[in-house]
């Protein structure tokens, strides 16, 4: 498959949040401020990229030769948890300034469905290493794009007069619905 097609499809057309509904938890939680949305977005790109490439390698170099494909779920989730710990430790030691902006979002990512989804998706789509790398960057980049757009809208929402019962998440979901309409227009892109 064409790499550009994979990228556009994962980035815009099949956007993780608006088309696949994956990664909604951090999406609802962290999108109230632009700065935290950017921090979360970068942390997610970094973790998804690393964890998916590692999972891909583990699957094709250890599980497939041993005939243990059924172990993929257990192995991937453990690998993701370990990778997040490693990244947090590495950043703590080597880059305090980076830790200041990303550090608090890292523990949140282990239970982010998007990480496990990308690792599994690369296997189900039978991507090779290059395609895996492209997909593992495109998916979280699409996540960050929507998160940042959404955060800018939500910052304005706080200043508007919303009925009491709709305040907070319900009105945010209505915004998401409208954004999903906008993003569905990308369907004919490829």
């Amino acid at each position, binding site marked *: 498959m064409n790499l550009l097609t994979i990228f556009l499809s994962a980035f815009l057309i099949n956007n993780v949040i608006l088309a696949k509904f994956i990664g909604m938890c951090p999406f609802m939680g962290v999108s109230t401020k632009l700065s935290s949305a950017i921090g979360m977005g970068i942390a997610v790109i970094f973790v998804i990229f690393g964890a998916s490439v590692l999972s891909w390698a583990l699957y094709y170099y250890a599980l497939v030769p041993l005939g243990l494909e059924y172990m993929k779920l257990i192995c991937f989730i453990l690998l993701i948890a370990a990778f997040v710990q490693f990244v947090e430790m590495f950043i703590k030691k080597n880059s305090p300034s980076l830790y200041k902006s990303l550090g608090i979002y890292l523990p949140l990512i282990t239970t982010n469905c998007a990480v496990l989804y990308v690792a599994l998706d690369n296997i*189900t789509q039978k991507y090779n290493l290059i395609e895996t790398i492209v997909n593992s960057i495109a998916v979280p980049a699409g996540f960050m794009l929507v998160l940042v757009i959404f955060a800018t809208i939500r910052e304005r929402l706080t200043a508007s007069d919303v009925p009491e019962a709709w305040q907070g998440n319900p009105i945010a979901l209505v915004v998401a619905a409208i954004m999903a309409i906008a993003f569905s227009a990308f369907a004919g892109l490829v």
Partner: protein
Amino acid sequence: MSESNEKKRGFWSEMIYNNPVFGLYLGICSTLAITTTLNNAIGMGVAVIVVLTISNIVISLIAPLTPDEIHIPVYIVVIATLVTLVGMLMQAYTPELYTTLGTFIDLIVVNCIILGRAEAYACSHNVAESARDGLMMGLSYTFSLLAMSLIRQILGSGVIELSNPMTNQLIFSLRLIPEGFEIPVFTTQTGAFLTFAILAALVSAYKLNNEKKEAAAAKAKADAAKEAAKAAAATAAKVKEAA
């Protein structure tokens, strides 16, 4: 919300108040994604109930033995093993359902409800309590899925259908909205977000209303107490005068 308050509520009220999906916003991903048909919702709901109940039981059993450093990876292994098992069973007995639910069966592993209950409840309660909690949480998750899927399927396709997941035979099918009058947007992503928003707003309205009622009741009680105190003081004064 205090413990005593929780106990006073009835079954449905508790379902609404502690609803993991519309009240706490847990497990939203799968709720939005798979509620296009009633069949999917039931399949997913049953899978989650099974995984959640068994994982709660297992975790409440092994929690005292697990060193604190590795408790999260151990819980994750337990949950991932159960999800793999459930996935394999579904693949064998309900292959159609397994393909339509797709990755969302695997993603039960990272469903916040399950690890959340393990951490917040099962690791500090006994087996029976944990099993009950898992069952209740699973039921109220399934209840939310059913509500979402009923609304979306009826408005989106006008038909309400249920089929046997093993053989794929239609059990019943009922057209509620005549052909040509259905609203297809409800089967799309937009419809999922909108339905969710409306249900979440309803739950929030219900909670606000209840809180107002409780506040009013508390105020009335306080007023009554004040009156009673006044009356008591007055009678005490009278008694004094008489003496």
